[in-house]
């Protein structure tokens, strides 16, 4: 291989004698034979088994309570009331009682859940303006056409936040109270802040630049979404920093669920209170609901979910079971393969040939 490349004469067209060009690069040639695969299979089966058992134990340690309140208790009346759209402006409160047999230890998470609500319809999903939500001034007054027909109100004033998603925000609110044995009801404190993705709260959702203006002034010349009772800058009367596009309930709602049955985080038990320092004790509870969200049109259901979490998340048996099934499947296959290998491999030498 002359490096100097004295290429002249009859050898001028001689191809380079490099390993790549001659297709002779050194290479590793693995093969999937029983010999190589079997140890791996046994190993995988073992690992999956261990993981599965561990996950199963972890999942078993969590607790979960679901309560469908659509028509439960006194909510029945509200349910009927909400069937008529003309009553939309009237408020309706109801309460549902439930009991917890075994104490929820540690952090308790409070979710609301919806069934049969398709947040994943294409037109619905697209019906939002992320540009507006991220605080771009231009989009505030000029919502994206994707928001139609929820981009402007009848008088042509731009809606903020625009689109079907924001418009249909879940607007039931809950008050949870605990019947302390031999005593009065204790209101359960819920942390309603810090329940969104950090990046959503701080980057993806921004109010338009205020420049010493109040939020109300910033949102001047915009209309509130059609189905809303309050404008966006008054969503949380208690906490002025939780208003506008950075309202956490709004942000959570705006993260559209993948499937029609979903739940969304409402709050986390505040364990500062002495009673709840260890979580939720066993006993009777009442949940007072400000019942606004109509679901009967689409045959939906509403529920609240209380759950404790581990590092692994909530009570999801799928993963441990899947690991265990996979493990046993691999083990079974490995055994079958071993038999084949034993029978034919040894006798016929087919395996090693």
């Amino acid at each position, binding site marked *: 291989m002359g490096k100097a490349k004295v290429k002249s004469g009859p050898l001028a067209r001689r191809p380079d004698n490099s390993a790549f060009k001659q297709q002779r690069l050194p290479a590793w040639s693995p093969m999937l034979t029983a010999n190589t695969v079997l140890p791996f299979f046994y190993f995988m089966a073992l690992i999956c088994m261990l993981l599965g058992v561990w996950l199963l134990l972890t999942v078993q340690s969590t607790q979960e309570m679901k309560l469908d309140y659509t028509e439960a208790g006194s909510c029945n009346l509200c349910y009927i009331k909400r069937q008529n759209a003309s009553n939309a402006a009237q408020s309706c409160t109801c309460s549902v009682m439930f009991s917890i047999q075994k104490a929820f230890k540690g952090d308790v998470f409070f979710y609301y859940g919806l069934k049969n609500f398709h947040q994943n319809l294409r037109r619905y999903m697209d019906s939002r303006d992320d540009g507006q939500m991220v605080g771009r001034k231009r989009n505030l007054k000029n919502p994206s056409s994707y928001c139609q027909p929820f981009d402007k109100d009848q008088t042509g004033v731009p809606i903020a936040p625009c689109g*079907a998603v924001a418009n*249909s925000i879940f607007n039931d609110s809950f008050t949870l109270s605990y019947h302390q044995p031999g005593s009065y009801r204790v209101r359960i404190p819920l942390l309603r802040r810090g329940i969104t993705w950090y990046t959503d709260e701080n980057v993806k959702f921004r109010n338009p630049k205020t420049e010493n203006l109040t939020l109300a002034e910033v949102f001047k010349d915009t209309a509130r979404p059609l189905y809303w009772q309050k404008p966006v800058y008054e969503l949380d009367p208690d906490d002025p920093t939780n208003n506008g596009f950075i309202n956490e309930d709004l942000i959570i709602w705006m993260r559209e669920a*993948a499937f029609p049955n979903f739940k969304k985080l409402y709050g986390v038990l505040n364990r500062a209170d002495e009673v709840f320092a260890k979580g939720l004790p066993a006993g009777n509870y009442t949940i007072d609901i400000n019942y606004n969200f109509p679901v009967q049109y689409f045959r939906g259901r509403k529920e609240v979910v209380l759950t404790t979490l581990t590092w*692994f998340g909530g009570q*999801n048996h*799928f993963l441990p079971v899947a*690991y265990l099934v996979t493990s046993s499947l691999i083990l079974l*296959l490995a055994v079958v393969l071993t038999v084949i290998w034993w029978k034919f491999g040894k006798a016929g*030498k087919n395996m090693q040939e």
Partner: protein
Amino acid sequence: MLFYLITRRQAFHVKSPNPDESLSVIDTRDVIVGLRGRSGGERRKECVGEENWVDSRTIYIGHKEPPPGTEAFIQQRFPDNRIVSSKYTFWNFIPKNMFEQFRRVANFYFLIIFLVQLIIDTPTSPITSGLPLFFVITVTAIKQVGDVVFVKENETFPCDLILLSTSRDEGVCYVTTASLDGESSHKTYFAVQDTKAYNTEQEVDSIHATIECEQPQPDLYKFVGRINIYMDNEPVARPLGSENLLLRGATLKNTEYIYAVAIYTGMETKMALNYQSKTQKRSAVEKSMNAYLVVYLFILISKAFVNTVLKYVWQADPNRDEPWYNDRTESERQRHIVIRAFTDFLAFMVLFNYIIPVSMYVTVEMQKFLGSYFIMWDDEMFDEELGERAVVNTSDLNEELGQVEYVFTDKTGTLTENNMEFIECCVDGHVYVPHVILNGQEHEELFFRALCLCHTVQVKEEETVDGIKQGIHQGKSTSFYISSSPDEVALVEGMKRLGFTYLRLKDSHMEILNREDEIERFELLEVLTFDSVRRRMSVIVRSSSGQLYLFCKGADSSIFPRVISGKVEQVKARVEHNAVEGLRTLCVAYRLLSPEQYQEVCHLLSGAKLALQDRDKRLAEAYDIIEKDLILLGAYRCGGQVGGGTRLQEKAADTIESLHKAGMKVWVLTGDKMETAAATCYASKLFHRNTQILELTTKRTEEQSLHDVLFDLSRTVLRQHGGMTRDTFSGLSGDCTDYGLIIDGATLSAVMRPPQEDSNSGNYKEIFLEICRNCSAVLCCRMAPLQKAQIVKLIKASKEHPITLAIGDGANDVSMILEAHVGVGIMGKEGRQAVRNSDYAIPKFKHLKKMLLVHGHYYYIRISELVQYFFYKNVCFIFPQFLYQFFCGFSQQPLYDTAYLTLYNISFTSLPILLYSLIEQHINMDILKKDPSLYRDIAKNSLLRWPIFIYWTILGVYDAIVMFFGAYFLFDNTTFTSNGQMFGNWTFGTLVFTVLVFTVTFKLALDTHYWTWINHFVIWGSLIFFVVFSLLWGGIIWPFLNYQRMYYVFMQMLSSGPAWLSIILLITAGLLPDVLKKVIWRALWPTTTERIQNADKLYKGHLSEFTPLASLQSKAGSQRRGSGGQRNVPNPRRSEPFSKKTMFTRWQRTPDYCTFTPLLRFADGARNSRQGYAHGGQTSV
């Protein structure tokens, strides 16, 4: 390097020459003179031929209008001289490639999808899929033809030109066409007789003429036209032929300058036409691909249809149709239901359109184009003697090289060497060999002069050329004889040794130095050029004494019928004697012409030559009339350089044997006599000693009727083969009878004749094909070139539609090279026509072995995996999206983000498969060469059969289901973060997509058997790229985008433990069945390929040092035990049982054999076989 970038100097580049200027210099290097001028004269009235003028064009030299009174001056518009001779250039690769794709089955589809995206509201953006579809056609200025061009020595002609005059007195110029057809010899071109005197600018300016010529044709060697020169108002018509036409791309040599007129420019030049007009050959793989495409199109349409129907069923419930949270706009409400349904259907089509991979076509194209470099780069296919390497003219057929079933080969120059030397001559029955004193007979002198004159050899002085060169005076001066035929050079050389030296052609006079060292001059009047139909050539010369001679030489069969006197018998006897020895013998005859006869001849010839239509046919007729009443002079023969035998090409026998073992049928097609050809066939191992030869020749059909002979033969053949079991047949085992068929041209045409009315004659073609199918080797002798193509066509059209390959080196092989599926040219000594028309060109016949057995095999394996994998990965990709529709109310919500949809095929999963399809080697190439029977493992498109395709598709659907539902159950209304936060649909899609990308990449990794560092780099690199891209894509609020749906989605997903666990689990579950299938199949029903891989592993890569032995086979059957059960498993896909036994059955006996003994045995065997090769290597006849 991606593109065939051929740039040419833009010679003509003028917008519009000022009409007042008589002279405008246009280019700095090629001085082009545009001439305009005076008029005058009258156009001649009568035409030589009554042609159809539609197919010709008229060119006005210097744009001068024809003289008044003739037909109107019609300014025709011709293309400008810009040429895009490349398939791809840098800027047009993507659009042009796209355009290429659109011509295929898919073209309509892609266009529709794009248009749909433009028109309706669809789930995906039209920009992402539509952007590459556009390309701009630049309309360039149109330039007139007719400019007079001035070209200096060593310059390249800018367009196709008619030579007007040259700096040489004779009006000739020398040209090398090396860049056009690779022939570097200098060719002589002639100026038009009447204009050759005009060799200054002013003089040329005064020429007033028009040229009529045919419309542009791609044939480089054909040109028909005529020039009408108006001299003193007297029009003169002169014929123009290819000898007047200077081609673009050719270079002027040995001539100071020329003036010529442009007739074809730009894309109309013959060179440009040649790049375009290559007929598209389609490979079997491509056909399979198109069939799969149709299946997928069907799947796509049914998916879209089912979803549309389901959508409306689902929406029948009014609450679902338009829930309060998802109000429609007013215009949507007013739309008619049918229109809405149709729009929905189209939207689904768009959503699922990725299932038909646009990128597959691009990748296949790139694979073919880049992959073909490995053929060119192959050092083993470089020939030091010629200094040539393999050339790939069409990369479309790479994989077809792995599918060849029939090989049609030419004999002379392909199987045998074509180094010709004059051996002996025979005048009136007396035999002469070089360096013998002659005894001055009457015919003798004439005979030698005839040989000295009747040829087209040129004398080349100095300058080395790598064509055929023989020094006239070795050592002294460097003059060479050059000819496109080595025979002629050998002949003139031989004459020199007999004392007659051909000196040169000067001023139409041929000069001969005779034995008395006197120069004799003969005026060359006409050359009746050689063609392979006539198989003879003639010259008409006038001797210094004024005698007119016609000398004719040609094949014996073409001369004898035209001879009226001479010692025919003696010469004939000698010719036949020679033929047995395998030598090429030519006969020489002459005819004396009286001046009247000569006048008649001239008239005939000029009439034919001036014709614009059917010139060839007219010329052939004229030649036929002229070459008659000959007097036989004698015969001479040329042969290979060594001894007296025809030498086989290096390793020709070995190659043929390998092709046989690889299951290919080899046919030798030759124009030679049967005896000569048969001898070569034995020498080249085409026929073995125990081959039973079946003859289907005129000799036999004279005795029996063709009908009887055919039935006889077919009975013989079928009896034998019917009694054989599949297992004992292997085509190479010694004990079963091999058949070889010999057929000659005359019988062949009788067989090919369409069946007669009376039905008892039957269809001979079928019977003939039946016989051929059962013969391992066929020899066709006495074939005309067209018959060669006919044979190829016959086999191609037979009911199995086998893949054919034709290989040859001469112009007479071009027809079959073009006809066969794969045409291979040998860079022989008979010009470059075969090479130019071939799909692949190799220096020597022996290189065919590596080309087919190694490259062909690899390409086939690679591309079939490429095709299957592409469909697989797109099923995996799109099927989850289909499943998702069932959960999102059939609203066409995409599962994946737009960026993922667009980039999945372009960047996340494309490079690993492209690399695989470029460098995968399932078996070491040395083993492939050593064991040709491996070629059978992939025969009949075996890796692209329907069962395999269905397996891949099912695997894809399975993976898709695992991925989708795995993620679905994980998401099922539960939290899977430790802080209680929930994930949305984009996280779901991203999770599925991540599993998807990893699964399909790992699947490819599992299939890869040849892991070089590049594979590691690309496979792991593309996964890393996916992760990095996802991090980046979700890491920024993109300023110009209105949606930020992916913001931090990927990172949030990765922060969740269960997401990781499920990704790992789903990948494992997705790959498990394939791994299992591979292991079990390999253990129970291994293909030959897998067996060899196993064995190679066992011997740590040294297996290639051992040659597999055919002799092992007979033992193998008895040694086999414990495998009977497995063999009964019906498994049509796996290789045929016989191929299993080729080598490794040996190890089946006891485990002990695995360790040491076989090594010895193999070593033993290798030695034996090498002896075998040596023995049969280069036998000469």
